[in-house]
C-alpha cells in the first residue's frame, strides 16, 4: 500500500527543476485563490436574501425602496451577476478586497486587525500541541508497552473531545472555581492560557498518535538496533534518532493543522470573546457579508498554499532523493 502524502506527487529533482517547481507552485496557488473566490462569490449569492439588505443594516431593516436601490447601485448589485463576478475578480486581482457590508470598513483593514490575534492563538496552540504530543510520546514510549498503551489511550481520548465542551469545562474549573486564569481572552499571557489549551489539546491527541507510530517504528529500526549495539544509551537513541523520526510526519501535517486550527478558532474565539478571524467569519456568514467572507476565505487559502509550499520545500531541502515513493 502506498502512502499518499499531503503534497502532490513529486518528480526527481534536477537542473532547471527548481524554477519549474516554483512556477508550478505559483500557478497552483493562483488557481486555488481564483477557485475559492469564485466558489464563495456564487455560494453566498445563492443564499436566499438580498445583499443590499445586508448592507442596509441586516435583515429586518425597514430600509426604504430608495435606500435599497441606492445601496444596490453603490455596490454594483444592480448589474448582471456575471458582470458583478468579473468586476469582483478584477478588484481582487488588483488587490482591492472591497468594503465589509456589516463593519463598513475596508476588508483589508479588518483583516489586518484580525489576523495577528488569530495567528498568535493558532501559533501558540500548534507549539503547545507539538510539545505535549512529543512529551507524551517520549515518556510513554520509554515506559514500556503499558505506558505506551496509556499514552495512546490519552491521545485518542483527547483527540475526541469537542472544543466547545473543553472550553466550557476549562472555564468552569480554572476561572470560576480556581480563579487561576481569566475566562475572557486578551493578549496578556494569562488570558491566552485557556484558549490556547482548548485548541491545543485535541490537536496534541492527533499529532501524538502520528508521532507515536513513527517513533515506535524508529525505535525498532536497524539504525536504532545498531546504535544500541554500539553501546549508545536508550535515551541517546531516543533523542538522537527516534525523536527526529517522530517529528517528520508532524511537519508534513502542518498545512492541515493550520486549517483545522482556523476552524477551531471559530469556536474558541467565540467562547473566550477573543477578537480574530474565526469569530468574524461566523458573524460574516450570518450577516451575509460577502466581501468579508471572501477576504477571510482568501486569506486562509493563501495561508494554506504558502504553508504547503514551505513544507514541500523543507522536505526537498532535507531529502534530495525526492520522488521515491
Amino acid at each position, binding site marked *: 500500500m502506498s502512502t499518499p502524502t499531503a503534497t502532490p506527487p513529486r518528480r526527481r529533482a534536477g537542473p532547471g527543476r527548481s524554477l519549474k517547481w516554483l512556477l508550478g507552485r505559483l500557478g497552483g496557488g493562483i488557481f486555488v485563490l481564483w477557485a475559492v473566490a469564485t466558489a464563495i462569490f456564487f455560494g453566498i449569492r445563492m443564499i436566499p436574501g438580498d445583499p443590499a*439588505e445586508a448592507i442596509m443594516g441586516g435583515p429586518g431593516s425597514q430600509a426604504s425602496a430608495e435606500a435599497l436601490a*441606492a445601496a444596490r447601485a453603490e455596490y454594483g448589485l444592480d448589474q448582471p451577476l456575471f458582470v458583478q463576478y468579473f468586476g469582483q475578480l478584477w478588484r481582487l486581482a488588483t488587490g482591492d478586497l472591497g468594503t465589509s457590508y456589516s463593519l463598513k470598513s475596508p476588508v483589508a483593514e479588518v483583516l489586518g486587525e484580525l489576523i495577528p490575534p488569530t495567528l498568535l492563538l493558532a501559533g501558540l496552540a500548534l507549539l503547545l500541541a507539538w510539545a505535549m504530543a512529543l512529551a507524551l510520546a517520549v515518556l510513554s514510549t520509554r515506559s514500556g508497552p503499558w505506558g505506551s498503551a496509556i499514552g495512546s489511550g490519552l491521545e485518542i481520548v483527547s483527540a475526541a473531545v469537542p472544543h466547545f465542551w473543553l472550553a466550557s469545562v476549562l472555564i468552569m474549573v480554572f476561572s470560576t472555581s480556581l480563579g487561576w486564569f481569566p475566562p475572557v481572552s486578551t493578549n496578556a499571557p494569562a488570558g491566552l492560557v485557556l484558549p490556547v489549551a482548548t485548541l491545543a489539546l485535541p490537536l496534541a491527541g492527533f499529532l501524538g498518535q502520528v508521532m507515536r507510530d513513527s517513533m515506535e517504528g524508529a525505535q525498532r529500526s536497524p539504525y536504532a538496533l545498531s546504535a544500541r549495539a554500539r553501546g549508545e544509551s536508550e535515551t541517546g537513541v531516543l533523542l538522537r534518532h527516534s525523536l527526529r523520526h517522530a517529528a517528520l510526519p508532524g511537519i508534513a501535517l502542518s498545512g492541515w493543522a493550520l486549517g483545522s486550527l482556523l476552524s477551531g478558532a471559530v469556536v474558541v474565539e467565540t467562547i473566550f470573546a477573543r477578537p480574530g478571524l474565526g469569530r468574524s467569519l461566523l458573524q460574516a456568514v450570518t450577516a451575509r457579508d460577502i466581501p468579508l467572507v471572501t477576504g477571510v476565505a482568501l486569506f486562509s487559502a493563501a495561508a494554506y498554499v504558502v504553508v504547503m509550499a514551505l513544507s514541500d520545500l523543507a522536505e526537498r531541502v532535507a531529502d534530495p532523493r525526492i520522488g521515491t515513493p
Partner: protein
Amino acid sequence: MTHARPLATKLIPAAAALAAAMVLAGCTPGTTTPDDGGAAGTPVTGGTLVYASGDAEPSCLDPHVGGNYPQALVASQYLETLYTKDSVGKLIPWLAEDSTVSDDGLTRTVKIRDGIKFTDGTALDAAAVKANFEHLLDPATASSTGYLALGKIDSMKAVDARTLELKLKSPDNSLLESFSMPWVAIESPTALKRSQAENCESPVGTGPFKVASWKKQEAVNLVRNDAYVLPVEQAGHARTAHLDAITWRFIPEAATRYAALQSGEVQMIDNAQPDAIATSAKNPAIKHLDAPRPGASNRIELNSSKAPFNDANVREAFIHSVNVNAGIDSLFFGTAKRSYSPLSSVEPLAYSEESLFSNDPAKAGKLLDDAGWSQRDAQGYRVKDGTRLSLTFPVSTSQSIPAEQSLFEQMQATAKDSGIEIKIKLLDLSSWYGELFANNYNLVSAPYTKVGPGVLSILFHSDSTIPAPSGYFANLSQVKDPSLDALLNKAGSTKDEAERKDLYTQAQKKVLEGYYLLPLYNQQNHFLYSEKLKNVGATTAVASPTFFDTWLAK
C-alpha cells in the same frame, strides 16, 4: 440583589416649567439620597468600568443607522435625547425644555434647552435638532426604528435658535415618547456631515461620556466628557461623571460573561441568564438589576392569515393546550413574571386579562373537536381532511435565550398531549426573517421595544401587514380588523389622556380576546454587577442603564 427601580434622585430643575424639586430617574444623574437604599459611602472619582455586553456588536455606533437595542445600550452613554422618563415613568423634557401642540394636533413646537454643547464644541440649537431629524428621515441613513418613530413628520422649520416647529401629516400623541428613545437621540450636526462610516465609528453627542476609540470585536472605549452640562441641574452632584472611562466589551457566550464577572475581570454584564441570576443571589459580591423594557411584552404571535389559525377557535384551543406557567417557574428561577398583556408591565396603559389564558387541555380538546379536528393519526396528532394539525414555529437563536427556547420545547411537549404538533425551527436571524417574510410560520416570537402604547399600532394595525421593501412587517399575527384599526387610529391622535387610555384598553382587549397572541413575560433585561460598583440603576426611557451617577469603590 436589588430589584431595580430607577434611581430616585433629587433635582433642582433649571426650567421654570418644572416643579421645584423633582424625582428623576431615566438618564438622570444624581447624588445619592438616603432613600435610594443602594449606595453607601462617598462617591469616589476615577476608575474604569468594564461592561460586558452579550448582544451582537453593533456595526454602527450611531443608533440612527438601523436602530436596535445593542446600539441603544452603548449609545445611552454618549448621546442624550430630547425627552426622557423619570423614576415613576413620567415623561420629562431633557435636551428639550418644553413642547406644545396646536389645537388641531398638526403643529408641534419644541423648545430646545440653552447652554448645551456637543463634545465637538458645536452648540445645541433648533437647527441642530432639525439636522438630526433630517438625518433620520434621509433614506441614505437607513434608519429603521427612528425613521418609523418620526414617520408622521411632514416638514420642519427652525423658527429661531431655540424653537423648532414640526408640521405633522396627522396628529401623533406618541411623538414625545418617541423623542425619549435613544434611536432618536440628538447628535452633533457638524459630526453628522461626515461620511456615514466616520460617524458610525465615533458619533458625537452631549452625553456624560464620549467615544474615544472603537477596536472592533474587542471594545468600545468611552471616556468622561469633562465639559458635560447636566440639562436638568441637580443639587450637590459633581458637574461630570464619577468614572474616568467605560470599556464596553462584547462577550457573546453567556457562561463566559458570567465567569468574567465572577473573576472580577468585568464589573457589569447584560443579558444575564436566569440560572446565573439565581446562583448569584447567594453571592453578596454580585448584585442584580432588573430593568424590563418598555413597549410590547414578550409574546408568541399566532398567524391568523392562514390555516389552521384563521379559525379563532383553533387559536383559542392552542392557547389552552400549552402549559406556560410551569415552564416559566422552573426555567426562569423566579426572574420572570408571567404576563397576560400585549404591553410591557412598565407601560402605564398596559391591560391584562389573565382569565383568557388558562392551561385547560379539556377545553382545548372540545374546541378542536368542534372545529373538525377530531380524528387522530398514528402518532396521536389531530387531523382534519387528511391534514395534520401542525404548527411551524421559526425561532431566532439570537433573539430567544436558551431558557426561552426550552420553554418553547416544553410548550411543544404539552401541545402534543392535545394532539397539536409544533415544529420548532432554530434559525439564524437572516433565515428567520426569511421564513417570516415568506409567511412560512404559524407561531412566532419577536420582541419589539418602543416607548409608549403606540407600539400597539405598529403590532396590530392592518397597515403593518404591508411589507417594507425589505419584506419586513411588524404585524406578525396579521390581524386585519377595521374596527381595531379605527380604535388604534383614534387612540394615537386624541389629545385627551383619559380617552387615549380607554381606547388603548379597548384595543388590547380586542387582540387578547381574539386570541391573536400568547403573552409570556416582560422583555427580559437583566444585568448583574459587582457590588464594588455603586449607584447603579438609572436607566433611559428604553431601560438601558446609564452611568453618570455610578462610581467604583476602591
